[in-house]
Structures are given as C-alpha cells and as structure tokens.
C-alpha cells in the first residue's frame, strides 16, 4: 500500500477543510451576529492586537521592560471586549432618536476650523467658524450671528491673550495685533 502524491495533497486539503470547518463551527457558536452587533468591541480587540504586535518589538529591559505594561493592558482589553462580543451585550443606545449626519457635519466644521487655525490665526478662523456653526444651529437672526461671531472671539482674545497671557495662534498675517491694547494695565 502506498500513498500517491495526489492522495497526500488531498489528505492535506481535507485536513485544511476540517480546520476551516472547525473555525466555522466556533464562529457559528459565537454567532457572526454577535460580531456584527458589537462592531466597536471587535474594533478594540483588533486595535489591541496591533498594539501588542508593535509593543512586542520594544527592547526588553531588566525584568519588566517597556513592553510589559502596554501588552498586559491590551490583553485586558481583548479579554473584556471579547466577553462583550461573546455575550453580544453591546447595545446601541437611543439609536432611533439619533441622526448621525449633524454630528458628522459639526465634526467636519471643527476639522476645518483646526486646519485654518495655524494659517489664519485664532481671531480670524474663529470669526469664520462661528457664523457657520451658528447658522447650522438654526440661528437666523443676522444681528445675533454677527454679534456672537465678532464679539466672542474678540472677548476671548482679550481674556486669554491679554489678561491670562495664554499664547494663541496668530496666523501667517497677525491680524490680531491690529486690535487696540487694553486701556488698563492688568497685573496680579
């Protein structure tokens, strides 16, 4: 009795198929549904796996090195998020009342605001950001939008920059230097 090469290959294939079937059975038991119902937990598990991969390449010091703590914490995340996936207990809260679009739009406004900040400086970029967000928040009174968009950044500029001496981005063209100095000298 001898085993042909073909047989050997098919034997390996069969073994592979068995492994795949086993994995499939495990996945079935976990339930793909629970993976789908806990996307954030699954994301945290994958993220922790990436962290462990990077951390395992850290040089090992004497005894407990720099990689120990990140790896231990990541394993903890995998453990607890894993329980969440297995029990499918990740619940989406108030999802029916929620509309994601406004949150995405506001995030986009904020990203634009932070992008403009180094270029235009705090004063000008805030004066651009405020009317956009105020309008998006359903404020239609032009006077109110103008007052808030100009008054608030200028007030902040004086409070932060002149009274509390906190450094704020001035931008490529430091427009804010055109603002008059405070009439009184504030010293503490």
């Amino acid at each position, binding site marked *: 009795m001898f085993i042909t090469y073909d047989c050997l290959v098919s034997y390996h294939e069969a073994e592979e198929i068995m492994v795949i079937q086993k994995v499939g059975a495990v996945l079935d038991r976990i339930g793909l549904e629970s993976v789908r119902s806990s*996307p*954030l*937990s699954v994301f*945290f598990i994958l993220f*922790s796996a990436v*962290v462990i991969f*990077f951390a395992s390449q850290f*040089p090992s*010091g*004497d*005894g*407990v*090195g*720099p990689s*120990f*703590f*990140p790896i231990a*914490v*990541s394993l*903890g*995340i995998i453990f*607890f*998020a894993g*329980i*969440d996936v297995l*029990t499918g*207990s*990740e619940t*989406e*809260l*108030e999802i029916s009342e*929620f*509309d*994601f679009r*406004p*949150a995405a739009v*506001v*995030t986009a406004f*904020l990203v634009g*605001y*932070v992008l403009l*900040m*180094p270029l235009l400086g*705090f004063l000008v970029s*805030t004066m651009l950001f*405020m009317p956009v967000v*105020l309008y998006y*928040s*359903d*404020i239609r009174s032009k006077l109110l939008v103008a007052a*808030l968009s100009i008054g608030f*950044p200028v007030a*902040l500029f004086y409070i*932060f920059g002149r009274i*509390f001496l*906190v*450094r*704020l*981005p001035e931008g490529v063209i430091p427009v804010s230097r055109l603002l008059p100095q405070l009439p009184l000298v504030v010293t*503490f």
Partner: protein
Amino acid sequence: MVVEYISQALVNLADPFVLLLMVGGIFLGILMGSIPGMTATMTIAVLLSFTFTMEPSQGMILLLGIYGGAVYAGSIPAILIRTPGTPSAAATIFDGHPLSQKGEAGRAIRVSTIASFVGGIISVLALMFFSPVIADAALRFRSPEFFALAFFGLTIIASVSGDSLTKGMVSGLLGMLVATVGIDPVTGFHRFTFDLPELLTGVEFIAVMIGLFGIAEGLRKYSQGINSGNDRVDQEITGVFPSLSDLRSIAPVSVGSGVLGSFIGAIPGAGGDIAAFITYNEATRWLKDTVPSFGEGNIRGVAAAESGNNASTGGALIPTLTLGIPGDSVSAILIGALLVHDVNPGPGLYQEEPVLLYTIFVGFLLIYVFILIFGMLGANYWARLINIPKSHIWPVILVLCVIGAIALRGNVFDAWIMLGAGVLGYVMRLRGYPLAPMVLGLILAPIAEENLRRSLVLSGGSPTIFLTSPIALVIILLGLGAIALPAVRSIRANA
C-alpha cells in the same frame, strides 16, 4: 500649625482677585449646571486652560467654585423641567418635580439650596479632618501599595460606572493604553511616538478630557437635534428663605445625607450621581411614615438627594489630595490642573504645600457659603437660565474646546488629539461605553505602571511582593471583589 495654615489661607483668600475668581466660578457653575447637558466636568475641562497662568491656589478656587455651583444648580432644571442639569441631580427629580407640579417649585429650590449648603459644608469639614490622617498613613505606602491603589481605583470605577462592567473595564484600559504613549519613564524608550516630537511627553490628557466631555457631548447634542428639548420655564419663584417648619423637617436628613454622601464621594469612581441615589434611597428606608410619601413631592427627598450630591464634592477630594487617586471625573481634571503647576497630589502634598491645601479647604467652605447666599437671592433668575437656547451655547462651547486644547501648550497638535478623543467618545457613548473610567485610566496608568515596575525591581522580579505587603494584598483583593461581585450578580440574574 493648623491655625497658622488656616490664617495664611485666609490671607490668600482675602485677595480681591481670588474672591472675584471664586464668585465668577460659582456664577459660571450655576449657569452651566442650570442648562441640561452642560456638566460640571465639561465646564471645568473646557475652562482649565484659563488657570495656567494663575497661582495654583487661584486656579483651584476658580475650578472648585464651578464644581460646587454646577452640582448645586443641577437641581434647578431637575425640579422645574424634570431634566437634571448635571448627572448628579438625577435623584432630585423624584420629589423635586412633583413639588414643581404642585406649584411649589420655589419651596423645592429653597430646600435644595439649604441641603446643598449643609451637604457641601459637612463634606469639606470631613475633607479637612480626615485627609491629613489618611495622608499620614499613606506616607508609609511604598510601590506595592501604590500599585494596589491604582489597580483598586480602576476596578471600582469600572464596576460602578455605567451598566456594563466589561465596557467599563475596556474604557478604563483604553485610557491606560493611551497613557503609555511617550518616553518610558524607566528605560527612556520611545513608545508609540511615531517620531512625532509632540508625543514624546505623552498624549496631553487634558486635551483628551476636553474631547471626551466637551466635543463628544456636543456631537451627541447635535445628533439629537440642537434645539430639541428646549423646555421653557415661566413659573415665578418668590420668597427667599424656607419656612421654619421646612427647615426643621429637612435638618436631620440633610445632615445624615451629608455624612453618607461625603463617604461615598470619597470612594474612587463614585461621584455625585451615585452618592445622591444612595442617600435618597437611604432616606426612603429610614423615614417611612412621611406625608406626602417619597416620590410625591416630599421636601425631605429633595434634601436627601441634594445634600448627598453636594457632599460628594468634598468627599471626592479626599482620595484625590491624599493619594493622588481621583474620586470622580471632576477631581481627575483637578489633578491635571495641579500637575500643570508641578504640584503632585499625594501623601507628600501635606508636607510640601500645606498652605495650598488649607487655602483649598477654607476656600471650598467659603464657596458653599456664597452658594447659599446666591441660591437664596437669585433662585428666580437661575430658573430663567434654563430658557437660554442650546443653539446659542454649543457653538461657544465648541470654540472653547478647541482653544482650551491649543492653549495647553500653544500647539495645534493638541486640538487634533482633542477632536480625535471627542469623536471616539461620541462613538463609545453611542455603544454604551461609559467615559469616566477612561479618564481615570489615563490618570492611574502612570501610577500603576511605575509602581508595578518599581515593586518588581525591589522583589527581583517576583510578584509575591504584592502578597507579602498586607495593605497591598487587602487593596488588591478589594479590587478583585469589585469586579467579581457584579459579575457574580449578573450570572445569578441570568440563571
């Protein structure tokens, strides 16, 4: 000694600028606390960068004024429109709102003001008397004990916040993971810095907090509809002082809730919301034959909840100042405020900065006296704050979040960190993950890691060092219990 420190504290507080900060902080706190969705944590996180150029004591007085004012004022919308202004006022609704429906909103607010004052004062007195004792005992703590404390802090936070223990743990551990970014304190190795110079000193955790509590909450509000839930208050609130019979009726329950609330506040992770629920629950257990019964507009219910939640403010400062372990998310931010000034909260603080500590103690007492006065005189005006449309407030908060993050180091990079944390926090809350454990994880991780590694160096790598220190062992067992108990309970509930 103590008399000397207190007199020095009084000198510090007599400065007109400090008084201005105190009063301004209380007003801001009352303003934000009165508006549902604006919490004490958010206000303090967003305004923290104003305090950087101040003296540490001045900054703390401003932030504590906001804290006390917001926790007090949270009761006003809870009573009037059935929506707590801050999470800690949730238990005030039970009896506060029925009173308002009977047309007795003014009476409920006056009772709430007195009870907040009583609870706050009791808790600050507890802070003054107990924290030096605890700090003294903690001076003998070494690395194993501090590791155990950090471990305990994380587990108890995860077990008390939110509905899900596993989500609380994941949130806390994520915070710890974020805290490992930067130069490794022991070997100097750069961890997860991706060659970005801004990350060498680690992720600015205040930027993360501003994102989690400011931006995430704002995105949530926009998702729900920025102008949804704009309830109007037209009820006129008249009168200044509660009647003598009301005072007599609420006195015992206010004092009892103040003592219990201070104790609960001192447990790491248990903030004003949990304190108020427990004190309210205890009040209903102890006072059975009251008319009207609890839940139908009993002023004692309002007093129990309000004394309890304000008592948690002073209580939360006990572990914060004596051990460096935050009692709730506000005190986690206060730790950040102190660290900016190179003041390290922990047992050593009582020897290094006694005057600062006594300025905080006496200042916090004074803050509650001012809250009593403002609450009495201004109740009618504070109630009107609820009518400010949220669409006017949120754009301002969003700007303050961005500016607050940039002002940390004068670097736009931190605004990106803040935005990232905000979006993450928004998604996490949507999926039922509590955010408070993450903040505590951020604070506790360096304490946990440094002391774990130092302990293992001391023991030559053997983990038995945690078993041979009785204090560390007890604390670690308590921490394990904090995870095991809810787990066992949920398994039993499912069985």
